[in-house]
């Protein structure tokens, strides 16, 4: 008798990876001023994918000047409907090349191709489509009597967890509003941003409208410190966010920050439990938990704690960990060695502090950086794993008894990016949602995104909103 097991289902589309990438400045590809390059690695195989230009302060200066020229000469003066045409062109190309971009994203970052194919790339295109539609309707984003004006040159720094999508989130509204851009992609995942630069080049945007300068944190710092930058938009760690806030304080630079989180995912005993378990799994294991809004603290009503633990233990066994390019993979590679080390460190602290670790039993590939789906029970509010962002596939399970206790525990964190609530009772959902200190509260769902819906946090998760009409305001002066 044959057993029904999934055969390998590797994605067969090939991504065209160049051996070496320069910087995209003023509509041209150029070598970094220093002549230095760094390697970007496929975290699933530890193989070097390409050499990428290491931009320094000189390159950043070139890029910012190019962006300034493009802003004054073309982009701010262009008819809004014309700007929209360029944005539509970019979104259409993203759709046309979606499979190739998905493969590239997966190779460079380690996320399952299922996710890059079904989430990252279509959502990136959706953001360009959405903001293209706004370009000639900006006065409707303003209060009566206000005239929409662009801010100028935007310096944008994006993280490694959703490299293409975060670039799209930032570039699309900036361009729609008439700003020009210097983008600094994350050091470990520059390739899709560079592919986006190629698409922008093919779309024939005026030179300098979008510039991409790859590099490390010193490159980002040079961008933040540049005098000619009018606005900084940063997505990344709270630590770096704080540094940027200090640097820009007292300057004329506008700033938006989208930082870390330690989201509470609250499960009441009257929740639709089968779906709630799926929500919890999606909340923490989506993209290996490399998600700033991940539901990393599960607050379970005490009466259903044991049942939830049993179900969750069973459910994580069915997650398929392995080659991210396999279409049936649910959990891919951890983005980098240093990130895996950080996860290991926090998991060790959880064990040392007395929590109980539950993990999926699975074969870990010999090469590459992997970490199995995991959760801790018996977690106390004081444990590091309940307070610090792990940014990996590791969930901390805590309990509560009453709704007010759930709210108190949920809010007992310096962060405030997202939260989730599961209950079949609408009034309870509303009661809790109103009291949660989080920028996004998902009721009976999790990790649901749409370009028309604003996203962002408060407290140490940052400020400013991306997406929706709110996302426009960050790029408009009046």
């Amino acid at each position, binding site marked *: 008798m*044959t*057993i*029904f*097991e*999934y*055969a390998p*289902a590797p994605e067969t589309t090939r991504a065209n990876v160049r051996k070496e990438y320069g910087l995209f400045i003023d509509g041209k590809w150029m070598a970094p001023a220093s002549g230095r390059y760094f390697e970007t690695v496929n975290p699933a195989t530890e193989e070097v994918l390409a050499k990428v230009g290491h931009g320094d302060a000189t390159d950043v200066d070139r890029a910012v000047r190019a962006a300034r020229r493009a802003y004054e000469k073309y982009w701010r003066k262009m008819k809004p409907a014309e700007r929209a045409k360029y944005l539509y062109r970019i979104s259409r190309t993203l759709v046309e090349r979606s499979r190739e971009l998905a493969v590239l994203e997966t190779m460079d970052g380690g996320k399952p191709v*299922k996710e890059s194919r*079904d989430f990252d790339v279509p959502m990136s295109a959706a953001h360009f489509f959405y903001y293209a539609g706004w370009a000639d309707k900006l006065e409707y984003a303003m209060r009566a009597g206000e005239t929409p004006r662009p801010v100028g040159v935007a310096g944008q720094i994006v993280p490694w967890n959703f490299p293409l999508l975060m670039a799209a989130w930032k570039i699309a509204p900036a361009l729609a509003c008439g700003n020009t851009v210097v983008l600094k992609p994350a050091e470990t995942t520059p390739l899709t941003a560079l592919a986006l630069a190629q698409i922008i080049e093919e779309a024939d945007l005026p030179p300098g409208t979008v510039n991409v300068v790859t590099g490390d944190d010193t490159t980002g710092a040079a961008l933040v410190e540049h005098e000619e930058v009018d606005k900084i938009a940063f997505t990344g760690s709270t630590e770096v966010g704080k540094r940027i806030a200090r640097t820009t304080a007292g300057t004329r630079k506008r700033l938006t920050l989208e930082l870390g989180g330690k989201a509470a995912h609250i499960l009441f005993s*009257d*929740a*639709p*439990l*089968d*779906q*709630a378990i*799926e*929500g919890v799994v999606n909340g923490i294991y989506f993209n290996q938990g490399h998600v700033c809004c991940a539901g990393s603290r599960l607050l379970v009503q005490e009466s259903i704690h044991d049942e939830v633990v049993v179900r969750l233990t069973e459910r994580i066994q*069915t997650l398929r960990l392995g080659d991210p390019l396999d*279409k*049936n993979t649910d959990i891919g590679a951890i983005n980098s060695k240093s990130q895996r080390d950080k996860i290991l460190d926090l998991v060790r602290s959880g064990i040392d502090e007395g929590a109980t670790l539950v993990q999926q039993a699975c074969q870990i590939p010999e090469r590459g950086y992997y970490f199995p789906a995991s959760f801790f029970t018996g977690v106390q509010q004081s444990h590091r794993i309940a307070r610090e962002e792990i940014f990996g596939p590791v969930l901390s399970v805590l309990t509560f008894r009453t709704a007010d206790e759930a709210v108190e525990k949920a809010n007992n964190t310096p962060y405030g990016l997202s939260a989730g609530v599961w209950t*079949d009772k609408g009034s309870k959902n509303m009661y809790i949602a109103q009291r949660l200190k989080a920028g996004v509260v998902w009721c*009976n*769902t999790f990790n649901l995104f749409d370009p028309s819906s604003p996203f962002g946090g408060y407290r140490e998760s940052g400020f400013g909103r991306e997406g929706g009409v709110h996302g426009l305001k960050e790029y408009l002066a009046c």
Partner: protein
Amino acid sequence: MSVDAVTLETRANSLATRSIKTSAKVAGIHLAIRCMDLTSLEGKDSVGRVRSLCAKAARPAPGVPSVAAVCVYPSLVSAAKEALRGTLVRVASVATAFPSGLAPLDVKLADTRDAIEAGADEIDMVIDRGAFLAGDEQRVFDDIVAVKRVCANVRLKVILESGELGGYDDVRRAADLALDAGADFIKTSTGKAGTNATFPVAVTMCEAIREHARRTGRRAGLKIAGGVKTTKTALTYLVIVKEILGDGWLTPQYLRIGASSLLDDLLMQLEKEQTGAYAGLDYFPKD
């Protein structure tokens, strides 16, 4: 247990994206055939038609396993039994005033008794959706218990007819009720309603079966029926059962797919996997 439609449908859709290729596809096709209730439930069914259905059920193609059962109306059970003598293929019969279930209980029981006396190995009954929707769940429960008593050791599949219920919450409640009443299998649809089996409904019923097993230790089966015409759809149902209930349910003892034309598509896809090319439709006997 309440059901949330948004996340349920997301989960079902994500299972439908599983990529089943090469060896997995061949194994899946074999499994789908072994778990098939090859069905003919038309008003114009005849003894001759049932005989040819049985011939195909017993030996769908060279090197291919026989199906699990044929499913016919009670009056054709004896013909099917006769035609399948000496094979491992079982005979299932719909009963209890199929497809509506709107008959007095004694008529339903007599219907069931007749089918069993004619030799049926399995009974597919329908629940009284009218009573269920009117809130008279006790009557639905009692009907199932009464039919089960008549069935004794004959396997009882209880059709929920999910397309006529008021949503996923109803499907889950009806599934729980049928399982508690002693159903050996719960089955999605009659194939006679506007909406047949769907992926989210199958997910919901799998979850009910899983929780029933956890609660009582008793394993019940799932039968998908109605509108399953393509290999791709059948394979997705196998994926759903595999990932929600586990490999232990991937046997004809716990899983059935009720279908008619599906068998031809499975055979055609199997041939394609083996030869690399699609054969013409006329290479597969139509009935």
